[in-house]
């Protein structure tokens, strides 16, 4: 695995379970108990019906690539030069929601839209981050 630099999140009380889930290698989505909508990122209210009756549901962590970009310049100054080029992805999770993430692992330079991907929890300092890698079947 390549050396990863990341800016760690400052979770709120509401979102802390998501990031704690990541540290247990679980990708947690919010699921509405009234309308069954599954959504990401976590919010206090269901964005489809407004309900507050929400549960955490573990994602299977599999999805299909909606888009990607290879980042060619450092937006964080010289310390990030080591990361260039890195790859940002939009992943359509099999569970429903679309998620922004970072692609890690082999064949990053050959990635294409429609590729199957799976979550890879990558540890940086105190936090595991839900990145993705290409699945070759």
């Amino acid at each position, binding site marked *: 695995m390549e050396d990863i630099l990341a800016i760690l999140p400052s979770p709120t009380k509401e979102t802390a379970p998501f990031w704690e889930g990541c540290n247990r290698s679980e990708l947690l989505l919010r699921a509405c108990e009234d309308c069954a909508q599954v959504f990401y990122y976590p919010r206090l209210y269901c964005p489809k019906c407004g309900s507050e009756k929400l549960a955490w549901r573990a994602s299977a962590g599999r999805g299909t690539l909606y888009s990607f*970009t*290879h980042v*060619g310049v450092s937006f964080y100054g010289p310390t990030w030069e080591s990361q260039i080029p890195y790859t940002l992805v939009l992943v359509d999770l099999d569970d429903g929601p679309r998620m922004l993430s970072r692609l890690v692992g082999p064949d990053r330079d050959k990635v294409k839209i429609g590729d199957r991907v799976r979550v890879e929890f990558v540890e940086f300092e105190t936090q595991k*981050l839900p990145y993705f890698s290409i699945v070759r079947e």
Partner: protein
Amino acid sequence: MPRVTDEAVIIGLGETPVGKLPGLNSVQIQAMAVHDALRSCGLSIRDVDGLINLDPYSFPNSMFATTLAEYLGLKPSFCTTVDVGGTVTGMTMLQQAIWAINSGHCRTAVCVYGENALTGRSPGAHGYMLKNLLGGEEWEEPFGLQGMVSMYALLAQRYFHDYGADESDLGAIAVSTREHALLNPTAMMKKPMTLEDHRRSRIICSPLRLLDCSLVADGGGALVLTGAANARRLGAPMVRMRSFAMRMTHNTVAQMPDIEDLGMRDAGRDAYEAAGIGPEDLDMAQLHDAFTISVLVTIDALGFCEPGGAGDYIRTGATAPGGKCPVNTHGGLLSQAHIGGMLHLVEAVRQLRGEAGRRQVPDARLALVSGNGGIFSLCGVSILERV
């Protein structure tokens, strides 16, 4: 129906130099734009009782309309700040001014935006950053997303996939826009650009290259509005906002709908319908062009061609100087300067007044202005008309 009004009209326009304005802060730049706009219609600050602005993106402030009002020596009866994103902010300022004038909250209003985004930003900073709670901090930064360009790169890659487009389509609008800029003495970019120059520029975020990105700049622009009766008394040339529509669909890039469901299509349809016109009636279009891909998506969405046809449409010459519907006649954000899109509106008004010099579109009567804040998060379309 998002019809705006028949009463309040735009009677003045102002624009500061753009590029590097070292030693000037955002308040001073906005004040310069206000005074320039008032001069253009023979008014002074004593005539102004309405003020609408946006605080600088590079250095966000609270209560920026009151800051500017005090600096100018105004005591307005209507004063507010608007922030809904690229060029839609400017259109919403006009809408607010029109409503305020029509409802008697003020008689003469100035809408202004300006900042020192180039010389005022922190050392080592690249591109345009927007901070907004929810999105940036927790769901984007931990994954390495920073700056506007990476979001537009994700959109561009998907656009390529959906329509079989490629970088020559991006290059086509970059080149067309540069041709316009060469006719505008104030534009930051002074040299011709070829498709080859575009293809050779370095990758910023694939597939977007340096020449796909707009120009971070210092500068400001302003527009003056008053009631039509007052405008006639002043003998000022009049431009009317014939319609304005907006549509918000999301904020962060991960919540962006598929390309054909972006809000630009709905906003465009509403704006055309309210104005009773279609794309074939336009004399020009000023389309928000923070990145080349924005223009392709907007040309498709506003019905100039079938979805995915923007590249071919541009290659017909329609958007270039002298074309069927010239796009970004001032050189746009790509080749003039990125002043929050305010200069798209200033340019449309200037063209409709017949004051655009070498780049004047002959007998210009109807102009469309489009904007999108964030990553097509909030889209706006307005139709401006010479009265």
